[in-house]
């Protein structure tokens, strides 16, 4: 919560080093064994065409996409936990994941291939779901009450899940496989063209969240206290909610559903002693990026040559995390 220049240089150093190490591992490790020298040469554009393409156009964009998805989801989770004053809040609770999944599944059923239409449909679905949740919360409560937002999001998500089940119940096997695979999350299709767009988006969203980080510090005290300290409670809550939801929606449209990151990472960063939301957002971005890069690395090296879905690996990582949390609560 400090507004002053913070301490903890070791933590930041550690996080940054870990991120860089994971990124390097992500580029250097893969099904094709490459020596570090070959990887370095390929990054510089020297060597045979295949190796260069593998390093620059296969692994590097993949690592970049994983980092962006992790950073976006973690920042979104940190901001939401602050304004909703709930340590169990995460972006997927707002209906973002359900809405995106409905959009993607409908696109798949309509015969779209993954390249262009599915991400757009997913994003549109997510935006629609978040808007519906906000309208529902407003209609029921009259104010942007955080609890109402949360519950409206859960309701929208439940509806979306039902819709997905209905759509997929009588779908042909191919559609079913495509939709299911999308919903389990993957960065396997990463290409620089898409990654560039997502980078702009996540950067913009992240900056907007950081600009409002102090408001979130105050909002996490409670609504009356926040009002007493000069925060426009409804406006601020709505703004942060929307930005966080849109950032999460962008990650979902790019990589499918990658769960637990938005929930786990802010907790871990807070457990390391970070309090102010400005630092929490930055720390979550770095830690989230590293986590998803690592998860993707596991996804492609655990059962070669097949790849595990990214969402499955992050869910697996979530299990020990929650067990540890249970122990601290008890």
């Amino acid at each position, binding site marked *: 919560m400090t507004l002053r220049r913070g301490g903890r240089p070791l933590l930041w150093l550690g996080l940054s080093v870990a991120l860089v190490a994971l990124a390097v591992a992500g580029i250097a490790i893969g099904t094709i064994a490459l020596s570090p020298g070959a990887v370095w040469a390929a990054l510089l554009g020297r060597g045979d065409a295949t190796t260069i*393409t593998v390093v620059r156009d296969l692994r590097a964009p993949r690592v970049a996409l994983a980092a962006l998805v992790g950073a976006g989801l973690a920042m979104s989770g940190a901001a939401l936990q602050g304004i909703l004053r709930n340590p169990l809040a995460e972006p997927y609770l707002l209906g973002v994941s359900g809405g995106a999944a409905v959009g993607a599944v409908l696109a798949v059923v309509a015969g779209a291939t993954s390249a262009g239409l599915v991400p757009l449909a997913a994003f549109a679905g997510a935006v629609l779901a978040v808007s519906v949740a906000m309208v529902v919360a407003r209609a029921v409560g009259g104010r942007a009450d955080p609890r109402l937002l949360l519950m409206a999001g859960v309701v929208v998500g439940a509806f979306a899940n039902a819709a997905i089940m209905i759509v997929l119940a009588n779908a042909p096997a191919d559609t079913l496989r495509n939709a299911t695979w999308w919903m389990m999350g993957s960065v396997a299709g990463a290409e620089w063209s898409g990654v560039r767009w997502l980078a702009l988006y996540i950067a913009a969203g992240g900056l907007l969240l950081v600009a409002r980080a102090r408001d979130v510090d105050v909002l996490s005290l409670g609504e009356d206290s926040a009002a007493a300290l000069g925060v426009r409670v409804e406006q601020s809550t709505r703004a942060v909610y929307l930005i966080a939801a849109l950032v999460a929606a962008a990650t979902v449209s790019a990589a499918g559903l990658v769960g637990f990151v938005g929930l786990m990472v802010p907790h871990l960063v807070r457990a390391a002693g970070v309090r102010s939301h400005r630092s929490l957002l930055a720390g979550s971005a770095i830690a989230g990026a590293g986590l998803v890069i690592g998860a993707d690395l596991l996804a492609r090296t655990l059962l*070669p040559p097949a790849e595990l879905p990214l969402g499955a690996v992050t869910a697996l990582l979530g299990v020990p995390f929650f067990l540890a949390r249970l122990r601290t609560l008890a």
Partner: protein
Amino acid sequence: MRDLIAPSCVVAGTLLMERVPMFFSRLAFTLVIASSLTLVACASERTPVRKSSTVRVVDDFGDSVEIAPAARIASLSPTTTELLFAIGAGARVVGRTSYDEWPAEARRVPDLGPGIRPNVEAILAAKPDLVVLYAANDNRDAARALRAAGLRTIGLKVDRIADFKRATALLGAVAGDSAGAQAVVDSVQRTLDRVHAATADLHHPRVAWQLWDTPLLVLGSGSYQHELIEIAGAENVYADDTKPNTQTSLEDLIRRDPDVILTDSSRASAIRRSSRWRGVRAVREGHVLAVDDETSSRASVKLGMAAVTLARLLHPEASIR
């Protein structure tokens, strides 16, 4: 009645033997009784239970089923529907699945719903003599239900060319036209032999057949498509995987370094545009070939044409008919 004859003979013989004290008489008498019993037994076996010709086979569910000609057939898989029409038994088909759309005449057959987890009531309502299901595990419950309702049900799974031959023969028996079915099989086999001979001495390119993009699925060696590749004079780089298809990564594909990538037309253009796929030598050299979905989607009567198409695609310099 005939079940009583043998024991009666034994009882009668025993009673009679007690009255014949001398050994030789006893022996002779035993022989007479034994041979007459044998004659009776043999005679009863030669007499059939039913007048029609039936045969028992083991279907692809692993169940023993009786095969007899049927006038009303519910064919719940695109392959079997296509085969029935091909052998001229289209008129007997009283039900199909929503996906059975070839030949055009098949569309006039009533749609009974999905082929996986079919609607049992809809099938019963069509009053078939015989139901042909796709032998997936998901359909075991349906098969049980149909058989319990008294309907003869066969599960078929046509994965390989040998399966195609067997299925066609079986369907021919069911349609009461085994000769016609055999003719179809022979015609397809002749085409396959012709293609195999034409490509035998040509250079065999190494091929990877992409079946799906997300996740990346490629053809293994467990299906007819793999057999078609070999007949068409090429080598499947994923032949070591015995499944019909296998999930893999782009890096693994690059490592296996095929000469040619086969896929359907929309995916082919996506591959050519993609920057990731440029890691594959075949893509950089422009060897991405589109295989028409229609000819290669089933192991059926179009197998021959599929082999010809593939061979022409893979060996453009040779003229293959």
